[in-house]
Each structure stands twice: as C-alpha cells, then as structure tokens.
C-alpha cells in the first residue's frame, strides 16, 4: 500500500540570540492510510516540533525547516505556498492539541468554531455548517448537542472541550489527524474515554493518526507503529508488538522499565538517570550516551546510524557488527516487556 505521509530527513532548527538549536534533526517516518503511529519521547525530544513542522506551523523567524521533505499524498508540504498549505490544514490534515482548556477561542461558541472549518474548506453555507457541526458533536459523543453547539468553551468541561476539538478536527473528514498529547491534560477516566473515542472514530472514518505522547500506555492501546524520539532524532522505530516484546534501544528499555507495573510491586521506581540535555550540549557521539547504562568509548566518538534489523530499526552501536562490550554480561533482549502498562 502506498504511503499517505512520508517524512524524509526532516530538520527543524530554532534560532535564538544567534544560537542554533536542532529541535528536529533528520527525522524520517511514514504512515499509511488508516494507520496509527505513536511518536514517543520525553519533553524536549522534538515530537511536538515534528508535528508542527508537518503542517508548516513553525513560528518564523525563530524556527525554520532547514532540510527534508514532508510528502503528503505525493506532494511536498514543505515546498507548498502559504495558500496551498492552508487548503491542507484543517481539511486533509488536522490537529488536536494537549490543552483543551486553552486551545479553543474563549469568545466564540464551540459551534462557531466547528462551523468555521466547514465554511472555509467545504464551501458550506452557515446553515449547512451548523447542521454538520451538531452532527459532529453527536459523533464525538456530546449529549444534547443542539444546546451545546451554542455554548462557549468555558461552559464545557475539559473532556467535553477535547471532544469538541476532535469534532472540529474531524469535521472535514481529514486523511490524517495529528494528535499532540491529546489526553495528557485530562484526568484518567476522561483519558480512557477520549482514547476509546479516537480508536472508534479511526475505524469508522479510516483516518490515519499521528499520536504524539510520552505515555507508553496510550501507545500500547492505540498505535500500530512506534517511533521513539530522543533529542531530535528517532532512536527506535518498529511495529507496536515487537516494540513492547523486544525493545532494542537502551532508551526504549529504560522508558518501559520506568513504568510501574501493577503485577510486580517494587519499593523503588526505575527512572532513567539524568535529564534530557539541551541539544546544544551534545557535541559528538550518541545523543543518549550521557544517560546510557551501557555506554562504551565508541558511543562517545561517533553517532550510530539507524540500523535496520528486519524492519525493526534502532539507532545503537550494540547492534552493529563491531560491538564489543566490556564488563557487562547481558544481552539486549533480556528486559521483560510490560505491554499494556
């Protein structure tokens, strides 16, 4: 099957006070129709910037896509003019954001905000758009949609607002939905409802989803494929089953280990030591080296390439032919999986 979205070697840099920050540094992935890709990483790994780069929503002049292409349905979004990309935004590709509290405009009714995409892209009249807006509110499970459509965002709860965001995003039947941490700001029960709704709609509407999250549980529940990002680079890329059964990169292993499991009661959590360094601090070698438990001299010298192990890609020297490890007697696949945590 042909790829719906193909991101090739995307590089988005930010410039502040003359300093250059490589927020996204050579990221590539692809997405097929109806597929869900989970883009995972800690804060500062560049996952949100990646999503904003796809729709060319990086704030100029501070941020700039300096290289790479984003091929959507055969066309490169990076090369598109402002007018052309606007026809894609909200119509073919739409986004939902982390903060439903602040992502809706407080001075317009939710109906007005949903209608806006419909009149903009589908050429509907106000009346038709309103009918469709109410219909969409029903689709996302908002009770008494006829009344809710005339309400303002502050009159709705966080979960309801995120549903409105989803209704707005799906109003034009997009081929791709980019969900940037859609459940992070919601409480756990609402979170589960929103995820369920997204899964349900994905099957019904055959929308591909790029799901950005730091929550591995969310990935396990919704994604078909996983890409793990660290400091602007993809460090592991595979389908979701293999990823949870056999995480290859020490960072992915660390992420999975750090999720507390309900089956094994432990006294201590297992965090990954240290913090994500600022991109400018990493001069050479593997970007994860400063926090890696299995770091070797080669890791500090050169950065590994993304190594393809039968479709399971990983950026780590351990999987290259000339890996010699001193002192540690473990093998990479030993860490037990905790799928569905």
């Amino acid at each position, binding site marked *: 099957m042909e790829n719906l979205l193909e991101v090739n070697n995307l590089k988005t840099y930010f410039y502040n006070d003359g300093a250059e920050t490589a927020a996204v540094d050579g990221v590539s992935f692809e997405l097929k129709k109806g597929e869900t890709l989970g883009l995972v990483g800690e804060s500062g790994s560049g996952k949100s910037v990646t999503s904003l780069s796809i*729709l060319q*929503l990086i704030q100029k002049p501070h941020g700039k896509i300096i290289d790479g292409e984003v091929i959507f349905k055969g066309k490169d979004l990076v090369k598109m003019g*402002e007018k052309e990309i*606007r*026809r*894609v*935004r*909200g*119509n073919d590709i*739409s*986004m939902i*954001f982390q*903060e439903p509290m*602040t*992502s*809706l*405009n*407080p*001075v*317009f*009714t939710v109906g007005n905000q949903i209608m*806006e*995409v419909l009149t*903009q*892209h589908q050429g509907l009249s106000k009346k038709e758009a309103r009918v469709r807006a109410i219909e969409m509110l029903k689709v996302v499970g908002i009770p008494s949609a006829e009344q809710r459509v005339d309400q*303002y965002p*502050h009159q709705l709860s966080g979960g309801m607002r995120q549903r409105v*965001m989803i209704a*707005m995003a799906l109003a034009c039947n997009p081929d791709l939905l980019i969900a940037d941490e859609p459940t992070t700001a919601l409480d756990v029960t609402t979170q589960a409802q929103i995820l369920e709704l997204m899964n349900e709609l994905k099957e019904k509407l055959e929308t591909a989803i790029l799901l950005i999250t730091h929550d591995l549980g969310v990935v396990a529940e919704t994604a078909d494929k996983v890409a793990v990002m660290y400091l602007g680079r993809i460090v592991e890329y595979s389908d979701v089953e293999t990823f949870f059964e056999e995480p290859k990169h020490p960072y992915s292993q660390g992420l999975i280990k750090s999720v507390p499991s309900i089956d094994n009661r432990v006294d201590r959590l297992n965090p990954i030591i240290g913090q994500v360094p600022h991109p400018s601090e990493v001069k050479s070698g593997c970007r994860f080296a400063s926090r890696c438990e299995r770091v070797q001299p080669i890791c500090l010298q050169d950065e590994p390439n993304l190594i393809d192990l039968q479709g399971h890609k990983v950026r780590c020297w351990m999987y290259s032919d000339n890996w010699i490890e001193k002192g540690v007697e473990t093998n990479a696949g030993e860490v037990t999986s905790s799928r569905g945590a």
Partner: protein
Amino acid sequence: MKKYLIKRLLQSIPILIGITIMTFAIMQLSPGNPMQTMIDPKISSEEMQRAQENLGLNDPLPVQYFTWIKEVFTGNLGYTVKTGQPVGQLILERLPATLLLTGTAFVMAFVVGIPLGVYSATNRFKAPDYVLTVLSFIGISIPSFFFGLGMIFIFALKLGWMPTSGMVTIGADLTGFAKFMDYVKHVTMPSIVLALPTIAVVMRFTRSSMLEVLNQDFIRTADSKGLSKLKVNLKHALRNALIPVITIFGLSIPFLFGGAYITEHIFNWPGMGSLGIQSIVAREYPVIMALNLFTSILVMTGNLLADVMYAWADPRIRY
C-alpha cells in the same frame, strides 16, 4: 444583565451625592468669593455685610448646600454672577460644540488607534513597528498646547490650509454641504490635537494586548484550521485583544472632556472647555460647579458603559 444595570444605576446615586458634596466643598475652600468680584469698590463694608446676609452667603454651610442641591434637582443651576444668565442655558448652548469636538476626537482615537496597534503587533520587530512605537511616545509626551500651536503655525499660518480658530467661518452664510465642509475644516485640527494622546494610548494598548493573544494556544488552533492570516488576526486575535482596550474606552471619555479645556482654549472653540476656563478666571462659581457636576456624571457614564461592554465582548463575564 438588566438586573446588573439597575444595580449599577442604583450604586451611582450615593456616588453622585458624594460628588455634589465634593464640588460644593471645593468651591467653599477656594479663596475669594463672588461678592468681591461683583461689588462696587466704593461700597461700605456694612452694606456689603447686609448684601451677603441677604444672598444667604452667611448661612451655615449645610444650609447653603441643601439650598443649592434643591435648585440643582429642579433644573436650576444658578445664574452667572456677572451677567445673570441662567447657567443651565449657558452650558446647553456650549454643549453641542464640545460634543462635536470630543466626539470626533473619540472616534478618531479608536478608528486610528486600533488598526495601528494591530498593524504594529503583527509586524513586531520590523521597521513599521519601531516607527509607530516612536511616534506613539511622541504622541503621549507632546503637550497639547504646544502641538496645537505648532499645528496652527504650520497648517493655518504658513500653509493656509486650515482656519486658525473657531467652529464656523464668521460672516460666511453657508448652507447644506458647504456648511458641513466648513465644520469639517474647523474641527479637523482641534480634534487631532485632542485625540493624539488617546490615539497613542489606544495603539500601545492594542499592540501589547494583541501580542499577548497571538501567543495563545487557540491562535495555533486557528492556524491549524487553515484560516487565512487575516482571519486569524482580525477575527480570533483582535476580538480577544479588544477586551482590555475597553478599559481605555471608558477612561478616555473623561480624559477627552478634560483635554477639551485646553484644546478649546487654544483653538477658541466655543465649547464647554473654553467656558470653563473663562469661568475659573472670572470666579464664576455657579458655572464651575455645574461643569464639575456635568463632568463627574460623564465619568460615571463612561465607566458604566465600559462595564456593559465587557459583558458584551467577553462571554465569560456574566452579571
């Protein structure tokens, strides 16, 4: 909303009473009394005492206050000391001229200030923003008497484009459109002088408010919906940015009426401002008191209007 309005109107009653007391007290505290400007210097002090007694100027202050307030409520604002004209009539004669001037300045302030603020904000850190920032500081700092005289010197005396003063061309018997244009010509310079500081303030306020709004998440949402930059800026951003500007809207009404004192004086504009200055110089207490009262009511109305507009502009505010 209706309930809130009634509540606010009721609240304004004690404030109004307070204002009348203050007005009365200030006039009592200021040196000199109307007798001293009225009397024939040859009059004996005995006769003067008698006259003061007859006029009620020797009554206890509360009695004087209630005498005054009773007359005010029946529509009698007193008579001028010198000519004996009814003050109410005098003010009503001057009111249209002042309303024309301040009204023009008011509209100008917002019609010019808001678009400039938006333009400045959307072009931040570019040349037009810097130019407008400098201009706005000049606008805020330049005193109106200086700016007004400068304008008269350049546009009226040197270039001869504009009349130097007054509201109509004296002696010209114009009708219809020509009359209207005559008004326009006369009102242009004084209203620019009067509006300038408010234009600058409105612009700066709109600019900072817009910049704040443009950083909000919902602007990113609007961008991601594929709306044009114009629609994002003018619909989504401006509508939110205007909410704090309403404060300036309310405050500018008394500011403009106050500014009219000086502007009218410079341009010899036959309004309440020049009346006020003349009255202060001539110690025309009844006129000053009436003008004070009038301005205070204006301030209250301006604030009330601003509060009502808040509720209209921001759906989160419900009274």
